């Protein structure tokens, strides 16, 4: 696992992605998402596939579910020592897999359901989530041979080197039930075949799958580093996850607003609605270094919903569709019709304009940790009533 | 409406060009006792001197009359004008009606009382005919006498000299060009003329022209006899008002006109040497027989006749440019003021190079100037005089060879250079 070859800065890849959310919170098995992504295998080259699913650990919804991959037992022992030291591990188990054609030399795959001991939040101002992030960063940067690839509550990421459908079968995803599923098939042009390099990239409950290249990677990375993030995964998709974590979780920006920062409207538009777009202007002034430039289409899964959006001039494909209470977003319309033959509505989102699906509030509470912070609640209401600003 | 113009020289042309600049159609009749298309009288001396091809004498192109849609009656003299019935009568009795009449009859030579004036070989020198006649007899002329040391006299003398004739100029005053120059300037010219071989006799005059059947000599006031085969009488011109004697037309020295070139009779205008008009320097009505003045007066009359009252005559002043014996001289306005009357005079003289500059001021306004030898840019002085500009700020500069707009105060310079008129 040569990710520590630090000169290696960024991954360039073209990909397929697909995802859906049932806004009523009705959970479905992983079968559908595998079908959908499999149809777009042409867009990947067998060097990586992955999934994220929400609502899969209802009985453990109060606990952070850490998915880890280890090169060897030694790495496992060292890492578990750290985990036990810093967290309370309620349950530890191997992630169930099956031998599958096309999935070679898997690392050791384990998951841990953990919670944070209040007393450990030594510093004031450091939230429980910050604490988890800190630990994830620590393991991913410093401990050799170990890698955390999922760290949210009641959700999980599953990824590997191989074609996405093989990856899905390898992880036996048909056995999981989730209300939101996202998937990714990878076509890297120069990443070593490393499992950690596959999408989705996650932090806490944020999971990102991404098709594209971020030409602004260099500055996005340095910007994130100012806030203590360390980009170590040899791929620019990672910065997407961190940017969302920064804007949504740390800076408490509503999702539309965060998207507006990442794929900002042009000055021409801003000047045109001058006054009305004071906020957009301020966003560009303050978050210029967070502007994600270059071609991309991404899906962002989070505990409350699903977001899909494009770069500011739409240089990568992204199609959306709706049927009943389900929102589908994928690289290709075919990928949607494969699992939803007759959608009510199919459309191609505008550049920089996020497509958002929201889990109904009561479900939110059902699926989430019972200990929702007030501010969190406010935000979720706020967010829920957002009209499209962009 | 019909316009009739008596006269066919610069004043007439000024009027015609003014009218035609706004009105192509109104019939204009031009009457002149001379048979030629409009020519420049001052040029006859150049013609006589042989410096001009015959057709260069003409002031306007051949097609002037057609182009301006005129009705020329040339070689027809006007005997009388019936102002009451608005007609002009020709020598053949024919009457020509007018609505507007312009009197532009110009000047005629002033002939003093001298015995023997009728002797063959005695000529005046104002018209083309005069030059032609003189030219035609020159082959048997060795000596000539010119009576009068004014502009015409000197130009005539110089012309004859150029035709290898031995010329003597007889001037009554004690120096030549007495009306336009001062002693200093004329002395410079006299010196130059003598170098050219022109004899000058001043403070003297011709009493009699002697000869039997043809001029043989003249007798001067001091009794001295001069042999000569040719006498040119060039004492000056007076307004030619003959056709208007015994009419209601108000005449003193010349036809009196106001700032609109109107005479005392309605719709009758006068312009040019025939007029007696306002002199803005002497602040009096007098005859100013100079070319630019004639054109301007004609132009104003012309505009008036078309009903354009915009142009008015703000008065003129004497000005002359003469070059004799390679010494150019320009004189403007009042050149010989009476010592008192609060005039200031600035002068600069360099005899070796014949350069003489003289400016006469009254209350810091230029009222006259004489420039000899170096005359370039004198026009600026003329302009200042014309506009009555106070030169207090830069009066000492007036004498400088480099004098120009650079010498003006900034605002005056800007005003003069930027508003183009």
């Amino acid at each position, binding site marked *: 696992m040569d990710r520590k070859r630090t*000169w290696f*800065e*960024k991954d*360039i*890849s*073209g990909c397929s992605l697909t995802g859906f959310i049932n806004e009523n919170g009705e959970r479905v098995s992983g079968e559908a998402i595998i079908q959908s992504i499999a149809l777009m295998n042409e867009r990947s080259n067998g060097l990586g596939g992955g999934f994220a699913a929400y609502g899969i650990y209802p009985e453990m919804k109060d606990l952070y579910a850490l998915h880890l991959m280890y090169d060897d037992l030694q790495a496992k022992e060292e890492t578990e020592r750290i985990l036990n030291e810093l967290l309370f591990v309620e349950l530890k188990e191997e992630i169930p897999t099956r031998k599958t054609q096309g999935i070679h030399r898997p690392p050791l795959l384990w998951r841990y359901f953990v919670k944070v001991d209040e007393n450990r939040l030594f510093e004031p101002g450091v939230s429980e989530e910050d604490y988890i992030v800190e630990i994830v960063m620590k393991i991913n940067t410093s401990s050799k041979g170990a890698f955390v690839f999922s760290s949210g509550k009641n959700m999980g990421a599953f990824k590997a080197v191989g074609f996405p459908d093989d990856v899905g079968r390898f992880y036996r995803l048909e056995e999981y039930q989730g209300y939101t599923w996202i998937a990714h098939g990878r076509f890297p*042009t120069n990443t070593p075949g490393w499992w950690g390099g596959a999408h989705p990239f996650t932090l806490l409950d944020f999971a990102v799958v991404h098709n*594209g*290249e971020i*030409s*602004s*990677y*260099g*500055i996005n990375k*340095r*910007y994130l*580093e*100012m*806030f203590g993030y360390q980009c170590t995964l040899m791929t620019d998709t990672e910065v997407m996850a961190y940017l969302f974590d920064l804007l949504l979780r*740390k*800076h408490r*920006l*509503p999702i*539309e*607003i965060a998207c507006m920062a990442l794929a*900002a409207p*042009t*000055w*021409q538009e801003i000047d045109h609605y001058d006054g009305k777009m*004071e*906020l957009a202007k*301020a*966003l*560009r*002034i*303050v*978050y*210029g*270094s967070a*502007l994600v*430039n*270059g*071609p991309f289409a991404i899906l962002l899964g989070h505990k409350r919903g699903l977001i899909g959006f494009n770069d*500011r*001039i739409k*240089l990568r494909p992204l199609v959306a569709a709706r049927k009943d209470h389900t929102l589908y977003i994928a690289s290709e319309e075919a990928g949607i019709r494969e699992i939803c033959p007759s959608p009510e509505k199919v459309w191609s989102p505008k550049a920089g304009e996020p497509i958002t699906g929201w889990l109904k509030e009561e479900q939110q509470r059902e699926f989430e940790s019972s200990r929702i912070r007030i501010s969190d609640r406010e935000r979720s209401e*706020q967010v829920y*009533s*957002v*009209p499209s*600003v962009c | 409406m019909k316009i009739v113009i008596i006269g066919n020289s610069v004043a007439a042309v000024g009027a015609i060009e003014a009218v035609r600049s706004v009105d192509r159609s109104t019939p204009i009749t031009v009457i002149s006792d001379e048979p030629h298309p409009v020519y420049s009288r001052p040029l006859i001396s150049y013609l006589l001197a042989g410096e001009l091809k015959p057709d260069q004498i003409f002031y306007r192109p051949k097609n002037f009359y057609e182009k301006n849609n005129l009705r020329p009656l040339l070689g027809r003299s006007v005997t009388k004008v019936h102002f009451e019935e608005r007609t002009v009568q020709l020598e053949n009795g024919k009457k020509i009606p007018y609505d507007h009449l312009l009197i532009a009859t110009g000047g005629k030579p002033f002939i003093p009382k001298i015995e023997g004036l009728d002797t063959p070989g005695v000529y005046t020198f104002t018209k083309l005919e005069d030059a032609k006649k003189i030219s035609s007899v020159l082959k048997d002329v060795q000596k000539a006498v010119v009576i009068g040391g004014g502009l015409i006299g000197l130009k005539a003398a110089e012309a004859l000299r150029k035709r290898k004739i031995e010329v003597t100029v007889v001037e009554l005053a004690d120096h030549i060009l007495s009306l336009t120059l001062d002693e200093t300037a004329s002395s410079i010219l006299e010196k130059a003329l003598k170098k050219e071989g022109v004899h000058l006799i001043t403070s003297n005059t011709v009493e009699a022209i002697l000869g039997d059947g043809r001029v043989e000599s003249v007798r001067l006031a001091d009794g001295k006899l001069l042999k000569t085969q040719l006498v040119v009488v060039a004492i000056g011109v007076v307004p030619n008002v003959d056709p208007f004697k015994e009419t209601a037309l108000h005449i003193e020295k010349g036809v009196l006109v106001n700032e609109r070139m109107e005479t005392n009779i309605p719709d009758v205008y006068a312009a040019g040497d025939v007029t007696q008009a306002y002199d803005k320097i002497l602040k009096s009505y007098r005859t100013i027989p100079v070319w630019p003045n004639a054109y301007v007066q004609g132009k104003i009359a012309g505009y008036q006749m078309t009903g354009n009252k915009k142009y008015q005559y703000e008065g003129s002043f004497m000005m002359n440019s003469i070059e004799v014996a390679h010494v150019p001289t320009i004189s403007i306005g009042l050149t010989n003021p009476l010592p008192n009357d609060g005039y200031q005079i600035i002068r600069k003289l360099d005899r070796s190079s014949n350069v003489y500059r003289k400016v006469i001021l009254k209350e810091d306004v230029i009222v006259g100037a004489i420039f000899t030898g170096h005359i370039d840019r004198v026009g600026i002085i003329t302009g200042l005089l014309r506009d009555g500009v106070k030169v207090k700020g830069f009066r000492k500069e007036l004498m400088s060879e480099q004098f120009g707009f650079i010498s003006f105060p900034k605002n005056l310079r800007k005003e003069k250079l930027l508003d183009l008129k």
Partner: protein
Amino acid sequence: MCVRQCAFEGHSYDPENDEVNSKEEVCVGCHRCVTLCPTNALTVRQNPLDFRAHGNWTGWAIRNIFKQAETGGVLLTGMGNDRTYPIYWDHLLLNASQVTNPSIDPLREPMELRTYLGRKPDKLDVQYNGKNFQLKEPLPRQLKLETPVVFSAMSYGAISYNTCESLARAAHALGTYYNTGEGGLHSNLYKYGKNTIVQVASGRFGVHKEYLDTAAAIEIKIGQGAKPGIGGHLPGEKVVEDISKTRMIPKGTDALSPAPQHDIYSIEDLRMLIYALKEATRYTKPISVKIAAVHNAAAIASGMVRAGADIVALDGFRGGTGAAPTVIRDNVGIPIEFALAAVDQRLRDEGIRHQASILVAGGFRNSADIFKAIALGADAVYIGTAALIAMGCHVCQKCYTGKCNWGIATQDPYLEKRLNPDIATERLINLIHAWSHEIKEMLGGMGINAIESLRGNRLALRGIGLTDTELDILGVLPAGR
């Protein structure tokens, strides 16, 4: 013609032989005569006469000793460092898109250079008013630049009035700014206040309430790249009527700018001045602090930001000047490339990079230099010499003599007229338009359509012919990696 044009009396007419002679020893090589000669009869060449070749005792070294032996004085010079130190811009290469991400055609797609200078908050606070979102509180005042190029500080006095006017008019037309330097602001130029950065320097010349209020921003000048640690000196003969009015000093007296600001002996003093100025202008104007690029620029810069500077202006040792001791200009300070890289990185390490914008100056020659500076981390670039050259300067380095044949660095009314502000303004506008367009092309080539995605994006750069240490300081990878 040539005789009349040369203020250094390099040509003389000999009426006897009706010929023009020239004196090579006074020729400064400004090309004025060459340019105006109607018959193209003139050219200017280095006088081939040289000393015996010697690695150490070059003609330059020897002639300087001669001069000083004669005069016993300090060697003076104008313009920026002309020694052959490495120019790191020329060792940095740019990236472009191929296949995996499309390059963008600036002629067809929006390509944005707009830049805002000033302090930015750590984060935006947004509130929902039931209809849509809005800012909780307005941003601190920013300077809006339509293109990331600003005309750097050149004082009225060092340069002629016409030159100042041209800079002001061009800045206005271009939607950017010019800097008054320490010369005060001529009353005729107040109308360009919205595009003016006024300087408050050690001499405090021309500083008064109206001056501060008129400006868009205020710059405290601590140091200048061409002469770090050295004050300024405008000789009395240059202090003519208008200048004395504008600078508020008696006519004909030397204008001496002390080396230090005598009310700033420490960082906390700087803080006091910054806040004094902010108070005086009711917090309506960004405050910039300009320092020369010196060895510990990074630490100083971080102090400046913490002291309240909204803009950190760095002036590298190739920066120009009207007059400086040669020995200082040629030996003090460091290249702007290093200073910029170090400061930008330091502010990021301390997590305060967003609290101030970085304006860099010091010998920027073309759009590529500017582009690379922005990729290294600059928000915008100050150009001085380049602007003067656009107006006609031929870099003869004789600014300090006041005899500028091009009417730029002079107060001589005869020479001053040679710079027609209409022409100079147009030429400045042309230059910046051309550079802006080139910058857009380079951005487009990288598949980037907004300048903020280049700012600090050092991955856009690769080093060539640099040591590991240099690469490390610049924070760029070597070409090929």
